């Protein structure tokens, strides 16, 4: 990559929120991504089809900034966004140190795992990184850091939400299907834990394989894979999606498919109708000309969290905002019906999880009836007593 093209990747977007007559306090937020990140390459499966055409959630970040136009006027604070992509010849640590020199209130990190680990190792406890992408429980458990917050829900929050729904429907017998990929096995761990937590029984667990090999029928034939012990529901874990999309309507018994297909737990959905969600979806659609995804929402809510922290202390002072962001009294409007804040034991954003099909939100977890000693939102994910995170 040439020096010039690298420069062109470093661009700053400054939103002027008020006339210069208003205060001088500047609240800086940085979006940090990786140039040429394979995660955002189109993942063509066959004949040019792409099952997962991921978009950088920059529209979510920008919407979060747009929403501060008038708030900035009232607070006397200028909100400023910098979008920074790390070029191939740069190091994560070098770029992050550079970014942190500007004393941003938060750095939104949208990075692959090794880059994320490097970023976490580089940050100091007084810095704030917000993970807007990676759901792995690892970052909320032993891989946690005092500098690190998560606006994206953890794998366990998602699987707990789905487990609550199955429990609520009295569908406790689960047939679990998954591949051998590293990512799928991570999610399978979360599923097993959620099943135990909510009293579901995994009656059988099968590995599928993407192959037409007749000798591997036991792993590629959906009727054979789903013909085992009596079950109420088939829970499929297929992060790639290529196998899973063929499972519904091919099962041996007439059973609903949940997990990666059918009914899926998500941070957000474009059809959500309650709690002001239609307004957020419409605002997003207007600027991005597409529907808001869970990833866009996680990016938007990360900005919103910082803005709400700035609002609560009425200043852009870095230490004060950092403390406010981590306060259990922070009240973030999630557009999911309840106020959110970050768990003080692992930095995870408390939030409801939507259980949705491709075109409807079927229910919202925590479901009615799942109680908790302090906050029903903590029925989702790793609760304080189970946390292995040590700051």
């Amino acid at each position: 990559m040439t020096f010039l093209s690298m420069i062109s990747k470093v661009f700053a977007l400054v939103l002027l929120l008020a006339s210069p007559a208003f205060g001088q306090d500047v609240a800086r937020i940085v979006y940090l991504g990786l140039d040429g990140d394979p995660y955002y390459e189109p993942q063509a499966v066959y004949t040019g089809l792409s099952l997962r055409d991921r978009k950088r959630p920059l529209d979510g970040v920008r919407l979060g900034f747009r929403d501060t136009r008038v708030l900035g006027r009232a607070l006397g604070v200028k909100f400023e966004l910098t979008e920074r992509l790390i070029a191939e010849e740069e190091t994560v640590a070098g770029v992050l140190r550079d970014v942190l020199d500007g004393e941003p209130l938060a750095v939104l990190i949208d990075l692959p795992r090794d880059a994320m680990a490097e970023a976490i190792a580089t940050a100091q406890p007084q810095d704030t990184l917000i993970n807007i992408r990676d759901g792995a429980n690892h970052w909320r458990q032993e891989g946690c850091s005092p500098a690190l917050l998560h606006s994206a829900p953890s794998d366990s929050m998602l699987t707990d939400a789905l487990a609550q729904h199955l429990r609520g429907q009295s569908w406790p017998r689960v047939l679990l299907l998954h591949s051998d990929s590293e990512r799928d096995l991570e999610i399978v761990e979360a599923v097993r834990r959620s099943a135990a937590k909510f009293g579901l029984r995994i009656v059988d667990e099968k590995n599928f394989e993407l192959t037409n090999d007749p000798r591997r029928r036991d792993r590629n034939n959906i009727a054979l894979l789903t013909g085992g012990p009596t079950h109420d529901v088939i829970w499929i874990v297929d992060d790639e999606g290529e196998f899973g999309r063929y499972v519904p309507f091919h099962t041996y018994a007439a059973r609903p498919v949940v997990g990666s297909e059918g009914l899926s737990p998500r941070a957000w959905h474009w059809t959500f109708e309650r709690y002001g969600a239609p307004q957020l979806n419409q605002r997003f659609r207007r600027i991005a000309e597409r529907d808001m995804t869970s990833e866009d929402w996680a990016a938007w809510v990360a900005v919103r969290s910082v803005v709400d922290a700035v609002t609560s202390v009425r200043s852009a002072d870095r230490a004060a905002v950092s403390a406010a962001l981590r306060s259990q009294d922070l009240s973030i409007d999630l557009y999911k019906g309840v106020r959110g804040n970050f768990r003080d034991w692992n930095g995870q954003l408390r939030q409801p999880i939507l259980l949705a099909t491709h075109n409807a939100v079927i229910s919202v977890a925590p479901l009615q009836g799942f109680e908790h000693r302090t906050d029903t939102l903590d029925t989702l994910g790793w609760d304080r007593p189970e946390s292995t995170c040590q700051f």
Partner: protein
Amino acid sequence: MRLTTLCFLLASIGSTSFAQPTGMAIIPNERSDTLTILSPENEVIRTIETCARPRGIHFNQDRSKFFVGCADDDLIAIYETRTLELVGRITGVPAPETFDLHPDGRRLIVSNEEDAAASVFDVETGEFIADYETGEEPEGVQVTSDGRLVFVASEAANLVHVIDLDADEVIADILVDTRPRRFALTPDESELWVSAELAGIVNIIDVATLKLVGDIAFLPTGFRPEQVTPVDLLITRDGSRAYVALGRANHVAVVDVKARKVIDYVLVGKRAWGLELTADESRLYVANGLSDDVTIIDTATLTPITSVPVGRVPYDILIDDQ
């Protein structure tokens, strides 16, 4: 269909401004795009097809007409109260949610939910007069009786904007608690009450200084704070009592205004939002958005009398009884 209202029409033939009130309640249902008409005996006597996503509803000055905000049609429909006929439209109003009528009877101040603006229209000519930038998702609108100040709540920005109509500008942005929705003024207009939906409280603003001077928190028995989501609120004419619809807590709170203390909670339907009192203040109507009904409360005993099924997602209530 017109026959059903004939009995009301007979009493009100003549000049519209001297029309006898019928005692009917008019309820916009935002999901079924209809207006439900309830008789004083709490029976559904008529359902009128109206525009897309009807929300806020308000009388004109002499109550001969009423306005319905049509959020998905970008217009405000004008109905004649006596006949329930559509008599006009104010068009080009982006996603109107709620509005208030200026004491001059001509200027309608509308919050444009998707445009982050409050706009002013002339109700007689339908002309656009002015607009003011607000935070995202403006909602409640309240004009003072002297017609000088307009308060607009911005749900997403947690702000109450104060517009000075004479000066033609926003003179203050008051930070309030999470997700401000609706307003009520005390009769002497010294206090502005604002419901903060997600904070589960009502903020009290001193109108003279435009500063927050108090809060009232709500928590009916058996509910968690996060389930308490107050939206609409009303203060009685003598300023003694306030009613606050608590949204997902399925109750209406009754508040002693002077003491700023909750006196009682009345159980209503699911997600109570819209409120309206009858002219004699003996009955309180409550629109329950998620149980598709309206609960009518006897305010003397603070007990619900009945709940009447209406259309899908009733939003607000207007009563033609004065």
